[in-house]
């Protein structure tokens, strides 16, 4: 836990002072208001008291003045003589605060009166108010308000000794009868009193102000005295909250706040102690965690090494790394990994690693001894079995191991078993995959080579075709021109020779065309153009064309057609097939006939049989003749010209059209080749290997002037 230092505490105090000052201000303001009120009340009370005092003083003075005047003017009033009154009145009037002095008789008539000129004429005595004075010698003085002074009246009393009365009413002596003989009047100025009152008021205000100031000072002190400890407390609490448990709140008082501070301090101390314990616990925990982490890490390293097997590590490499990790993770002096041999019956030392000298691991354990899966602990070594699916697959041998090392190895053994098994499986799989990949690559290469060869072949054939046709055109052209006599007349012998040139050239052209046909069929480039074709017409046409093959042979070509048969097929291909069959028949027949027989089939198709009366074909050769470049024997090759491609191509074309060519023959009697075609082309089941056939079918009309299509 991070701990805030003292600096942080003060910083917090300085940093957030406002709320605390407000509190202090509130205390101060409250106390100040209180002291102002107190001062004001005190001033008011003082004023009030002073006012009363002044009043009483005035009353006393008025009484003194009146008494004095009444006493001195007794005789004058009694006599009603102004002269007698003059001295007392004047004496009284001389007083500073007297504005008027006078003596009146009982009838309210003025005997003598002196007044300040500023007063003007004083009002006459209000007799109605003065009757009480006339009736009672002991009546108190009457005070009448006037402008700027008090108009005070008192009775002037004289004592009259009357014996009768005295004797009758007071047996002890002769008591004098008191009698009102006049009225004394004094105007007492209000000015001195007012001045005095102003003085008093000022004093009162000063007093109040002084009190208020004293109160303010006191309030300040008190506020401080109250707020400072609270602030200190708050700061301390804050510091504790912020984590500074070393803080000691010093309030410096023994009151409630002091107690509170002490509680805070105690709490901080408690927290400090708890924290210390926690930290210590944490440290222990951390150490424990570190220890466990390290253990896990070492284990993970081991696992990682083993997992590498999945990623294609060689078994050797895997075991080396596993041992290195094992040695690093434990304190054994040396360790070895044993694995079963091929027969899985005995152990072989596969890898060993050690710290220091190469040690001896002792004798190999027996296979059965490890089957239990329990580690075998011997004085100087321990053998930990590596079981995979219950079978000892290997063992880890540790030299001078600790218990911990054995445990570690035991934990590692399970992983090692899986890893070894994986590695072995992986190796096998990888080997297989490598082989497969190589084989695949070889196949791909082969395919590419074949494709390239095919392309080159097509190109080559196109070139060959072009380069052969050009000179052939010249040979045939010259022959024709000479034959026509364009270069002059020719002899019969020359024309014969020209026929030979022409025949040879045509044979050559046939060979070229056949080779091209075959290569086109083989590369699947033959397209068929399906139309409605009249078979009779084809037969007639071929028969007519074949007349040129006859030369001087004693042969006749016949067409036998029962009815007009029309099927959907490629007429050019059919014509090529039949021409081939007829030319073959002519070739191998010296005398007799060649018959083209057209008959309908049950399926609605057609059978075109080409019968000859030639040399025939041996039974065993009857299929060989359909193979490329094959004639039935060497001698025939020499005797009969021909490429040996014709039948092969014919059969392939027949297959393309969905038909077949069959042969029946008797040596020395003749042969019959029969082309059978369906009502319309249909894909055929896979042909025999020798007649690999391919091609695409397309039901489109032939181009307007396709060279292969003969006009009929």
């Amino acid at each position, binding site marked *: 836990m991070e701990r805030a230092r003292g600096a942080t505490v003060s910083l917090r105090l300085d940093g957030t002072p406002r709320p605390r000052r407000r509190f202090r201000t509130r205390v101060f303001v409250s106390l100040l208001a209180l002291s102002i009120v107190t001062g004001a009340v005190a001033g008011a009370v003082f004023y009030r008291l002073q006012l009363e005092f002044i009043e009483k003083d005035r009353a006393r003075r008025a009484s003194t003045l009146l008494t004095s005047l009444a006493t001195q003017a007794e005789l004058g009033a009694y006599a009603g003589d102004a002269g007698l009154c003059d001295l007392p009145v004047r004496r009284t009037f001389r007083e500073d605060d007297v504005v008027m002095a006078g003596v009146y008789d009982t009838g309210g008539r003025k005997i003598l009166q002196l007044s300040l000129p500023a007063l003007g004429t004083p009002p006459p005595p209000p007799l109605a108010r003065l009757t009480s004075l006339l009736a009672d010698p002991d009546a108190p003085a009457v005070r009448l308000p006037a402008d700027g002074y008090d108009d005070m009246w008192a009775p002037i009393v004289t004592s009259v000794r009357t014996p009768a009365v005295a004797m009758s009413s007071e047996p002890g002596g002769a008591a004098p009868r008191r009698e009102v003989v006049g009225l004394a009047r004094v105007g007492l100025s209000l000015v001195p009193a007012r001045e005095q009152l102003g003085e008093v008021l000022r004093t009162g205000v000063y007093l109040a102000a002084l009190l208020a100031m004293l109160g303010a000072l006191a309030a300040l002190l008190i506020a401080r005295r109250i707020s400072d400890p609270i602030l200190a407390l708050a700061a301390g609490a804050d510091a504790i909250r912020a984590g500074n448990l070393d803080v000691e709140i010093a309030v410096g008082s023994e009151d409630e706040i002091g107690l509170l501070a002490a509680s805070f301090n105690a709490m901080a101390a408690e927290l400090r102690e708890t924290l210390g314990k926690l930290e210590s616990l944490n440290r222990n925990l951390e150490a424990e965690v570190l220890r466990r982490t390290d253990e896990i890490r070492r284990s993970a390293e081991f696992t990682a090494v083993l997992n590498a097997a999945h990623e294609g590590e060689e078994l050797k490499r895997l075991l080396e790394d596993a041992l290195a990790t094992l040695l690093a993770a434990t304190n054994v002096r040396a360790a070895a990994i044993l694995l079963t041999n091929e027969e899985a019956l005995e152990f072989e030392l596969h890898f060993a690693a050690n710290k220091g000298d190469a040690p001896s691991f002792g004798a190999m354990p027996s296979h059965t001894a490890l089957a239990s899966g329990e580690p075998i602990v011997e004085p100087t070594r321990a053998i930990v079995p590596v079981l995979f699916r219950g079978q000892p697959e290997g063992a880890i041998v540790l030299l001078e191991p600790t218990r911990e090392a054995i445990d570690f190895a035991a934990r590692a053994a399970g992983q090692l078993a899986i890893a070894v098994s994986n590695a072995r499986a992986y190796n096998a799989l990888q080997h297989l995959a490598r082989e497969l990949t190589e084989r695949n690559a070889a196949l791909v290469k082969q395919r590419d080579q074949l494709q390239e060869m095919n392309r080159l072949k097509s190109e080559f054939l196109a070139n060959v*075709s072009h380069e052969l*046709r050009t000179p052939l055109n010249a040979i045939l*052209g010259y022959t*024709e*021109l000479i034959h*026509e006599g*364009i270069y002059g007349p020719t002899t019969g012998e020359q024309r014969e020779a020209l026929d030979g040139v022409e025949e040879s050239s045509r044979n050559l052209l046939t060979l070229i065309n056949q080779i091209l046909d075959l290569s086109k069929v083989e590369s699947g480039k033959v397209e068929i153009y399906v139309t409605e074709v009249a078979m009779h017409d084809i037969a007639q046409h071929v028969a007519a064309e074949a007349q040129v093959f006859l030369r001087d042979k004693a042969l006749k070509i016949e067409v036998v057609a029962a009815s007009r048969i029309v099927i959907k097929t490629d007429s050019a291909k059919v014509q090529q097939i039949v021409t081939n069959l007829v030319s073959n028949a002519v070739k191998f027949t010296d005398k007799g006939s060649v018959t083209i027989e057209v008959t309908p089939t049950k399926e609605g198709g057609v059978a075109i049989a080409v019968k000859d009366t030639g040399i025939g074909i041996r039974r065993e050769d009857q299929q060989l003749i359909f193979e490329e470049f094959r004639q039935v024997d060497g001698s025939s090759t020499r005797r009969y010209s021909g490429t040996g491609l014709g039948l092969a191509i014919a059969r392939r074309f027949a297959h393309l059209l969905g038909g077949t060519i069959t042969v029946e023959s008797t040596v020395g009697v003749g042969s019959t080749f029969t082309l059978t075609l369906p009502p319309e082309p249909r894909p055929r089941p896979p042909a025999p290997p020798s007649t690999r056939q391919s091609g695409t079918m397309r039901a489109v009309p032939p181009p307007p002037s396709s*060279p292969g299509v003969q006009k009929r």
Partner: protein
Amino acid sequence: MTPTGKTVLLVEDNPHNRKIFSGMLVHSGFAVVEAEDGHQALAAVAPDKPLPDVVLMDLSIPGVDGWEVTRRFKADARTKSVPIIALTAHAMRGDEERARAAGCDHYLAKPISPKKVVEEVRKILGMS
């Protein structure tokens, strides 16, 4: 034979074939203008020259090839109406289509009888 009054432009690089077709055409009463390669073929129809009535066009020829010469003939308003007969040893599948795509009006594959060529020419010119 009697002259036909018709001129054939014979484009053919092989001297023998040129001689054969030319001989047969002349023999049949045609006037023949020979061209050994594409440049000569193009020069033969220059504005100052009389236009041929028909063209026999070998396709594999040096310089500008026959397909290109055909395209140019057919692109030029002056020559586009002259019929062109491809006369070629390119006789494999698709060759006729290629020739017609370039603008050839007719197609004859070598080897071919010279008489047959003359027949074709006559037919195209409406002479037979």
